[in-house]
């Protein structure tokens, strides 16, 4: 079988993990640019406080709780994988996926409620940012759930266990972005 490169000698970091860190580095400027733009507009438009008052803090807080808890199961999955227990790691990844699915379903209901109240992506600048930032984040959640399903399938057979840590790092980043989106969109009113 053709050997696969697993470690980059220049950085001394395993190849897969190095790739994930670079993905996250690019994500920082994507989400960072979006959030920085939001802050600029929010600071120069005091009336956005009134628009933001229509977002539901409790729904946002519940989804924050869900993501923080899913991050816990993701890191426990990494711990199990490190101990060589693929079955346990897969089970914990399934719990993490459930967290991601719950988050997306709650978001769906929330958006449905907001749109039915007339708050759409074209209502004003605030709602444009709201749907763009939360939508881009939700896409990352959905992508994470799909990838996690694939990783869990192989982990269950005790194969490619290093991937459990890699999808975990990505998932924690998705959690981290939400940690900043929550106060920006739901608390600062």
């Amino acid at each position, binding site marked *: 079988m053709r050997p696969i490169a697993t470690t980059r000698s220049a950085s001394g970091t395993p190849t897969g993990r190095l790739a994930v860190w670079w993905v996250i580095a690019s994500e920082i400027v994507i989400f960072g640019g979006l959030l*920085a*733009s939001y802050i600029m507009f929010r600071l120069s438009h005091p009336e956005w406080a009134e628009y933001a008052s229509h977002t539901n803090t409790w729904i946002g807080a519940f989804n924050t709780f869900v993501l*923080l808890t899913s991050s816990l199961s993701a890191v426990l999955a990494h711990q199990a994988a490190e101990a060589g227990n693929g079955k346990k790691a897969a089970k914990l990844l399934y719990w993490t996926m459930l967290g991601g699915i719950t988050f997306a379903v709650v978001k769906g209901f929330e958006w449905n409620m907001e749109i039915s109240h007339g708050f759409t992506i074209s209502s004003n600048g605030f709602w444009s940012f709201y749907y763009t930032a939360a939508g881009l984040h939700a896409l990352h959640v959905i992508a994470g759930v799909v990838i996690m399903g694939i990783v869990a399938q192989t982990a269950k057979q005790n194969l490619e266990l290093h991937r459990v840590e890699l999808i975990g790092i990505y998932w*924690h980043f998705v959690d981290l972005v939400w940690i*900043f989106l929550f106060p920006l969109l739901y*608390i600062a009113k």
Partner: protein
Amino acid sequence: MSEHAHPNYFKIWAWLLVLLSISVAGPMLEIPVVTLITAFGIAIVKAYLVARNFMHLNVEKKYVVYLLTTMVVFMLLFFAGAAPDVMNQEGDQWYKPKVEAEAAATPHH
């Protein structure tokens, strides 16, 4: 895969939930500076806890920390470069109907 000692993840998660509760309760006091601290100050602490303990940046190679910090600095540079213009309320051929309507409604001295 990186082999390292694992902290008590349940304890960190519990702290994150305590911080979440504070950030939700903060605005109830209706003091703007408290809301600012409980919302964004706590977000930074929560992000630090997740990055350090869940993403294991405390045991990751320094190279990765420098890489991520560089990206955050780029973001700050973007803000510093763009904000003075974006946040400016006046300019050549500036068309802002809402602002102009408000200005027209304001009595002149």
